[in-house]
């Protein structure tokens, strides 16, 4: 290959690369947190509250103590004051407690930890724990007596511009509707597990996490330890989706148990406990008002949301921050309200704000298209913009309409008869719908250590997170291509807080954060090699401009087709060639690095930048089929297109987009956590009754990756892709169901009874 003098790192990417950890995963060699061998562990089983509000009046523990293998039990009575309360996912101290006191905040709250010689013995003993409750009438959700509604006080003011109310009054065409989205739980296949091992003052926590350093910092605080004495290990995570993003209340108690027993303790929480000891996507209600001119231009945008949270926490997702930025509109108003109920605190779940709130907006846009008698794609085109409608900043790049146009062409959208109920296939009504997908492009500060040997082997270490996204591979691809090596010549070590910190694998920042820091480390390595070469008499590059030298094809190369083998070029740098890189994204203060080492969530957010507003965009097209008699709604086919800047690895990117799209179908048609209205308890807290799509529910899904070059979002032009796939899909499905049946479903999930 010829010497390539390009300085554009984006050319390094885009080659489909199989997962480097794929074989380990499918052969069972990949070690998940609860697979880590520890010596002579005791096993913990949680006892959780059967009432949603009140106090624990007392325990009857005799039967449990008598169970074979019983060792110990922790309750508020014997350990209550010994750990500090875990903060809520937003980092606020106002969170529900576990066994700090006798107080019960919600159904399924951890109220005791039983320890025994085996998992089975611990479970048996836990089943024998008697609990006496002083129960009070709980509030389950929106319509329950006793909830407290509070206007959300955002850190930045609610998006507001012009006079939305006045413009709505005067608009010739209007849509005004209410929508709702249900409670949903992540249900990663890997359960919530924790293994704690003490070695003197040092604590090691094996726990699946999306935030190695966040868990480390959080637990140090809860247990009043020096953070340097806390190590977290999580080499592979078996699904997370946000549920493993912030520490949960369980971990500190397992650490305490291990301390008391002077022995490692292992917890594997049960599936139903996962519904209440971790976070979830809270139900929302929304009101959308859109006013438009007769040619479809928006003149008024109003979006208000209501979200459920726990009693003490103000956690909310406030998706109006995103929806207000979707389309050009001169008059904008938004509001968010939090509704406090007797529930566990919700938290991040794949596209936390966009999944519920884009349902409201994109359903309303479809309703507006019908009110205007306009094609829904054309309505998006009329209102497309390259300028953030709220802040007036340019989008770093925005390829929404290329996504719509390419997906529409593949889907055959031009053959659509717009009249609802007009398309039919035997006993099935057929409908086609579409919607916008979007997700802000975030990036955080990150660090990495990189070495290169004279034999051309690179090793990079960072406390990254493989939660199923292919993170090992994206880092390997970056290093391999930036150093001119083969992917198999790169070793990636992640999943250990003894390694340099990277941000939480959340907010779709992982690829941008880790590839940019890895690339920076590679540049430092190149600089060292090139700097040594130009000074060396025996190098062909003696006296050359070091900036013109590149690591390519396993060689150090330069202009004039000159090259030098790596063994010479690297050996010349003297000793071990290793660099430590930190990348603080532009716009963040230098103090952001400090936050990174403290495990705080510091991020440059796509909606919070001074220079640009940064989002990835996409478009979903869905065919829905509804049986004329029994009204089951099934998915016929899907075409989705996304433009998300530089695609690091198309192979894993495809999986991310497609899995997001599938989850969007699931969010529209299947998933809902049912709550007993009187008891405020989750009812279908298992994988049989909490419906997820099976293979038969998922039709062929075609993913189009629309090329997009973004010079402003970050040096590598990488936009996150982990969450965009799910966004908007729920609306696309509901819009297709409307087209099939003429029935507008504004409350998810869409079920047979809504269509009878």
């Amino acid at each position, binding site marked *: 290959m010829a010497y390539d003098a390009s300085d554009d790192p984006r050319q390094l990417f885009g080659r489909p690369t199989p997962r480097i950890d794929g074989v380990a995963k499918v052969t069972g060699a990949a070690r998940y947190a609860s697979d880590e061998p520890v010596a002579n562990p005791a096993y913990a089983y949680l006892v959780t509250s059967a009432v949603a509000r009140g106090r624990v009046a007392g325990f009857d523990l005799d039967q449990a103590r008598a169970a074979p293998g019983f060792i110990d039990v922790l309750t508020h009575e014997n350990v209550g004051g010994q750990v500090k309360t875990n903060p809520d996912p937003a980092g606020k101290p106002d969170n529900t407690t576990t066994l700090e006191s006798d107080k019960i905040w919600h159904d399924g709250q951890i109220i005791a930890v039983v320890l025994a010689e085996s998992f089975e013995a611990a479970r048996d003993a836990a*089943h024998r724990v008697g609990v006496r409750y002083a129960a009070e009438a709980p509030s389950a959700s929106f319509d329950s007596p006793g909830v407290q509604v509070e206007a959300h006080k955002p850190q930045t003011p609610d998006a507001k511009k012009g006079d939305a109310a006045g413009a709505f009054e005067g608009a010739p065409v209007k849509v005004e509707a209410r929508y709702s989205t249900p409670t949903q739980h992540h249900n990663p296949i890997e359960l919530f597990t924790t293994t704690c091992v003490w070695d003197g003052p040092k604590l090691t926590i094996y726990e699946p996490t999306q935030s190695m350093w966040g868990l480390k910092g959080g637990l140090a605080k809860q247990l009043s330890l020096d953070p340097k004495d806390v190590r977290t290990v999580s080499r592979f995570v078996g699904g997370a989706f946000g549920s493993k993003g912030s520490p949960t209340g369980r971990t500190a108690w397992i650490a305490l148990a291990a301390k008391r027993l002077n022995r490692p303790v292992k917890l594997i929480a049960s599936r139903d406990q996962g519904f209440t000891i971790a976070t979830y996507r809270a139900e929302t209600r929304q009101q959308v008002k859109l006013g438009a001119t007769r040619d479809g231009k928006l003149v008024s945008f109003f979006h208000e949301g209501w979200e459920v949270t726990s009693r003490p926490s103000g956690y909310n997702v406030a998706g109006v921050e995103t929806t207000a930025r979707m389309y050009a509109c001169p008059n904008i108003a938004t509001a968010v309200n939090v509704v406090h109920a007797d529930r566990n605190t919700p938290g991040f779940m794949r596209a936390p704000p966009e999944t519920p709130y884009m349902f409201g907006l994109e359903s309303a846009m479809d309703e507006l298209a019908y009110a205007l008698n306009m094609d829904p794609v054309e309505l998006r085109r009329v209102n497309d913009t390259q300028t953030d409608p709220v802040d007036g900043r340019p989008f770093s790049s925005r390829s929404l309409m290329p996504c719509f146009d390419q997906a529409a062409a593949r889907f055959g959208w031009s053959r659509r008869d717009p009249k609802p109920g007009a398309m039919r296939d035997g006993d099935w009504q057929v409908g086609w719908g579409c919607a916008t997908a979007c997700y802000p492009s975030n990036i955080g500060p990150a660090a990495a250590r990189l070495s290169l040997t004279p034999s051309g082997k690179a090793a990079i270490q960072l406390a990254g997170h493989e939660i199923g996204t292919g993170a090992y591979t994206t880092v390997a691809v970056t290093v391999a291509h930036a150093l001119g090596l083969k992917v198999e010549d790169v070793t990636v070590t992640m999943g250990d807080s003894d390694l340099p910190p990277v941000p939480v694998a959340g907010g779709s920042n992982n690829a941008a954060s880790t590839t940019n820091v890895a690339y920076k480390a590679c540049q430092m390595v190149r600089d060292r090699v090139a700097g040594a070469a130009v000074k060396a008499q025996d190098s062909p590059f003696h006296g050359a401009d070091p900036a013109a030298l590149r690591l390519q094809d396993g060689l150090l190369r330069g202009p004039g087709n000159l090259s030098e083998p790596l063994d010479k070029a690297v050996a010349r740098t003297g000793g071990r060639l290793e660099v430590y890189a930190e990348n603080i994204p532009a716009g963040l203060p230098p103090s952001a690095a400090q936050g990174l080492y403290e495990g705080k969530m510091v991020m440059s957010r796509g909606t919070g930048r001074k220079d640009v507003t940064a989002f990835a965009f996409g478009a979903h097209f869905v065919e829905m089929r509804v049986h004329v008699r*029994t*009204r089951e709604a099934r998915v016929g086919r899907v075409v989705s297109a996304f433009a998300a800047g530089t695609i690091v690895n198309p192979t894993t990117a495809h999986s991310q987009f497609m899995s997001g799209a599938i989850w969007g179908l699931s969010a529209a048609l299947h998933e809902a956590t049912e709550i007993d209205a009187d008891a405020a308890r989750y*009812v279908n807290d298992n994988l049989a009754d909490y419906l997820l799509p099976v293979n038969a529910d998922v039709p062929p899904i075609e993913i189009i990756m629309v090329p997009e070059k973004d010079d402003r979002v970050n040096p590598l032009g990488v936009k996150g892709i982990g969450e965009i796939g799910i966004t908007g899909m729920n609306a696309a499905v509901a819009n297709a169901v409307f087209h099939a049946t003429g029935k507008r479903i504004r409350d998810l999930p869409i079920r*047979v009874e809504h269509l*009878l």
Partner: protein
Amino acid sequence: MRPFAYDRAETTALAARHPTAQGQTDAKVQFLAGGTTLLDLMKLDVLRPERVVDITPLKARHSGIEVGPDGLRLGGLAAMAAVADHPAVKRDYPAIAEALQLAASPQLRNMATLGGNVLQRTRCPYYRDPSWAACNKRTPGSGCAAIGGFNRQHAVLGVSERCIAQYPGDFAVALAALDAEVELVGPGGARRISILDLHTGSDRPHIEHSLRPGEVIVGFRVPAAPWARRSTYLKIRDRQSYEFAIASAAVALDLDGGVVRHARIGLGGMAYKPWRAKAAEAALVGKPLTEDTATAAARLALEGAVGHGHNDYKVELGRRTVVRALLAASATEV
């Protein structure tokens, strides 16, 4: 799961040495075959047997599939998958094969036996989680949390103020439609009962079935009948596979030209126990099978249905399911 004693019964006679009030939820001895219901419920601490008697050795004698001139005989310990895939069953008793094929997942169909399947416990979430205090099925007299609770999947037929649990299975619904009998062997010898008499009613929800202590289901007999070939099982559910019915109908028709000579209708996904809609069947006899006659029959089939809020839709869905199944059966080439 509580510690328990484990026994294996090599013969029905040995099984019969474990007489217990098996039909009761809190029975201290339980027979174990495929284990696909029992072990789940033990792990959930719903069932707490002191002794588990493994009857899988009975498979050697009681897992046959015989299709003869008098009808179909299925061994009580035959695997669901084996019957679902049997060519003669598929050809001559399609409702049976379809009901089995549409149930559960391949893994479960391989493990689960027919006898265990017909006795599958309800999926009522309030029953399956002992942290709910009120459940007359688990704790007689404690009340019913599903009434007034979340009851979208619950039954509308055969329910009482004591229990609205839904019978979750498919195969027994097809058996009910096709006049099947259950073969039992126990301490008192062998006997046969109608499938419709196997499951007991919602007035005593803590009693599951009418088996006598120590009795084992060793087989099922489905009589040969002119309507068996024109039979079908229609299962409506919230997803395409691996999911319980929210409404189902097993129907069989004997047609003379377009006119109904005999009809059989079993209902699932909406009833407390495998349900037979005899009034609906009678209404069809002598009439052409049309949209109108099917609709009238469906109305009769759901007569007396009682909704409890979230499951109100099942009354209308049940009717539509019957109509769709009847029209499908009448259109079948036999």
